């Protein structure tokens, strides 16, 4: 790849150039409101060729699943079906306005109604709201519902949420936003939640627990039923972080395990694309006792056949809106198509192969990198990325993988494993791809011993080498006209 710096749109700008032609006004011009006008909106001036070449050049400096293996743990970077991109762009979906009368958008409502039902079926829940825009947004939503539930029962004194020390950072952050206190619960020697610690923490101040199952070590909680029993026994609710649903869709339903609420990451399990960091979609499923608190509107089938088939309605004790309109509908359409393409057997096959692939990588890598919890894992596993006795750290291994053409695994997470590399291959990667990754990882471990400077100086083949993050945070140049100044 070229190492030449790509100019910004402002550097490419030439006064007087334009990239678009607009029709002349076909109405008489109205006088502009003099006191309200600006002189210049200060956008760049580029030709259309400039714009196309600029973004094409930028795209060539970006790595996506379409380019190669992307085993970013807990992110489920699976193949994004191309037909879904066509489907979401069908004018009948993309051009619909969210405030159109329900009878004019029956197709959209049919999609949403079915998706509510299918997600409820997959998760084992009584009801689903499609409104949250991302996983963390779903967490916040779920926690607000738990708060409303306890409040209604006169138990607003339940202020603590138990959170495993292996949890995603969004869990404690969402807990704080929802007005609760996060209480960290340690993991045990096998990577499960420490059952005694859970037991000791359970009292009448506990609002609930947030569990990720399988957890971020990629392990299915061996005591899940006991944890659920303990938390419910003290009057708490069980929240499931659905980020890792790709291991268990079609294998087990969190609702059947006693979970009260869970968010689904449609951009993970159901392969609506990650988009470079969103838009995602984070619907929330709940057990019957929380159903009335869901954010709305929800889509319902009309009770009388004379009226339009689908209507929208707010649940009785709704916590209110968490978003405008109906959530990220464009993602809902893709998830609908994805589920319909797969059917029940296909979803189960996805989980099975995601788990197969992750276990295969674990056994192929465990003699080169320490696997602290070396047992049958689910869709991902965690190893230590540091190569002992060489000074090579997980970050170095991650950067060196870039030279081999792979996106690195999640690194330094979960926090309970020092030098963690969290590897999630997903089901759409073939055995030859996994074998190539194993060869690269083993080669890097060997390089760490024979030529550690090579690994510690990586990457060497990317358009830029390691970047100075300290300088970025100190000088805080956040737009192209900001001059460096002490931050």
């Amino acid at each position: 790849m070229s190492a030449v710096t790509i100019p910004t749109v402002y550097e490419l700008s030439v006064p007087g150039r334009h990239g678009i032609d607009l029709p002349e006004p076909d109405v008489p011009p109205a006088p502009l409101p003099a006191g309200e006008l600006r002189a210049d909106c200060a956008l760049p001036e580029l030709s259309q060729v400039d714009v196309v070449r600029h973004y094409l050049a930028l795209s060539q400096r970006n790595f996506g699943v379409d380019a190669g293996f992307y085993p970013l743990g807990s992110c489920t970077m699976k193949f994004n079906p191309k037909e879904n991109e066509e489907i979401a762009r069908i004018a009948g979906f993309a051009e619909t306005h969210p405030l159109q009368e329900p009878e004019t958008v029956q197709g959209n409502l049919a999609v949403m109604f079915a998706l509510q039902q299918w997600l409820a079926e997959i998760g084992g829940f009584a009801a689903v709201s499609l409104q949250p825009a991302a996983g963390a947004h779903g967490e916040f939503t779920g926690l607000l519902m738990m708060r409303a539930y306890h409040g209604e029962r006169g138990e607003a004194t339940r202020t603590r949420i138990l959170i495993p020390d292996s949890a995603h950072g969004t869990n404690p952050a969402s807990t704080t936003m929802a007005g609760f206190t996060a209480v960290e619960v340690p993991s045990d020697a096998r990577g499960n939640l420490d059952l005694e610690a859970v037991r000791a923490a359970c009292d009448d101040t506990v609002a609930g627990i947030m569990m990720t199952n399988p957890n971020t070590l990629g392990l299915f909680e061996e005591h899940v039923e006991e944890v659920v029993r303990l938390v419910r026994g003290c009057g708490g609710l069980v929240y499931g972080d659905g980020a890792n649903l790709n291991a268990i869709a079609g294998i087990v339903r969190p609702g059947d395990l006693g979970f009260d609420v869970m968010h689904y990451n449609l951009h993970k399990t159901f392969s609506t694309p990650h988009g470079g960091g969103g838009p995602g979609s984070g619907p929330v499923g709940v057990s019957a006792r929380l159903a009335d608190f869901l954010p709305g509107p929800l889509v319902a089938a009309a009770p009388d056949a004379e009226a339009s088939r689908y209507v929208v309605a707010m649940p009785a004790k709704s916590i209110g809106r968490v978003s405008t309109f109906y959530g990220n509908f464009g993602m809902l359409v893709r998830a609908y198509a994805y589920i319909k393409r797969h059917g029940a057997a296909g979803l189960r096959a996805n989980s099975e192969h995601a788990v197969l692939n992750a276990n295969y990588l674990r056994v192929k890598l465990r003699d080169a990198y320490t696997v602290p919890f070396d047992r049958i894992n689910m869709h991902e596993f965690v190893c230590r990325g540091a190569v002992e006795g060489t000074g090579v750290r997980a970050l170095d291994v991650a950067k060196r993988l870039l030279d081999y053409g792979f996106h690195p695994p999640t690194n330094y997470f979960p926090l309970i494993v020092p030098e963690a590399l969290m590897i999630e291959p997903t089901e759409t990667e073939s055995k030859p791809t996994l074998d190539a990754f194993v060869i690269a990882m083993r080669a890097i471990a060997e390089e760490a011993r024979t030529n550690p400077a090579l690994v510690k100086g990586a990457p060497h083949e990317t358009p830029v080498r390691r970047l100075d993050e300290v300088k970025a945070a100190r000088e805080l140049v956040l737009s192209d006209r900001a001059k460096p100044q002490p931050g």
Partner: protein
Amino acid sequence: MTYVPHTEHETREMLDAIGVPRVDDLFADVPAGVRFPKLKLPPPSSEMEIMAEMQALAARNCVDPSLSFLGAGAYHHFRPAVVDYVLRRGEFYTSYTQYQPETSQGMLQALFEYQSMICRLTGMEVSNASHYNGATALAEAVLLALNAAQGKRSKIVISPAVHPQYRAVVRTYLRATHATTVTGDEDGRSDLDQLRRLLDGETAALVIQNPNFFGQCEPVDGLAEAVHRAGALLVVVTDPIALGLLRPPGAYGADVVVADGQCLGIPPSFGGPHLGVFASRREHVRRLSGHLVGETVDAEGRRGYVLTLATREQHIRRAKATSNICTNAAACALAAAAYLATMGKQGLRGVAELCFHKSHHAAAEIGRLAGFTVNPQAPSRPFFKEFVVRLPRPPAEVNRILRVQHGIIGGYDLGGDFPHLANHMLLAVTELNTRAAIDRLVSALSRIAA
């Protein structure tokens, strides 16, 4: 159908390597009583079948952007083909958050340029790399204001002329805090003079929308000074297209500017995904939520970009983070950047002027019809691309006739959110509405009145 590539032979080889006889054995930790449920889902479809099914579902919706006059927070605007060309690059849309900057320079630079253009457009000093949509961006702005007041102020004065759904989302976000919103009198008629009188030592922020929910420019002169005298922040919800023509909130003293960026090259898509624009003064940068892209250099001194100030974010700060946001709306920010770069200085001004002229033409023509009154609440106030019309008949009835008899999607019925505006609707006119379409609307309305 799945996208699993394995042959039976490969699966066997992999099971052998793992040392288990069957795939089912990988799930021994799952409690047996609930393992392998029979899911009641429809049977799988082929690609051919799903395409046909989705086309048929889409065909059950009424769609005609040129004959739609519905706005109120989601808009039909022209989208140059370049925008979707950029969005469809697999290198962009199949990537994720830029935690490995060396292999994400494309998206990082695009987001840095997005931040740069948003700063100039809004007149602010810093922009984040996106929020989910305009309403959640506003909710985060309100949380920022409460945070800036260090928990000592608990009142958010919010204009009733802010989008009702935005106000609803803010109320939801504040459920778990000590803070509350006030909008003045119950029926939502309070103007800025009345809201100014509500500012006090308890107030963390005044939130206005400009142009407001009804499309009108607010009289903002002196407003920021009054807000700042009370020790509060001025938060402005705006319309990015309007900023091609109208003075930016930074010019009249806003501290935080938020907007829904859907109008910048993103289809309405039944309300999402949209784009949350979020910009502020530099002094608030450490309280900002969401990703920020910063410029830096690599080991050889070349310019490059990274996500910065991550110490604010949930994956580092956990329970003490400024927000829980992780996945945002990056692809929508990319679309907005490509849109703004393509439209450029002259193009955005041109679109804004077309919206202005066409909406004024429509308003003038409708205002001439007997029984219709345009902007009865404030007839002399400038407006941009939306305006209020008092109708001689209930809006639901009018909209039904427009649709059934004339193929027109009418305006937003204001009576539900504003009881004093029963029999009023909000109409939006953009560059996509031709004069012929406007004339058709006017002629249809004249017949409805008759």
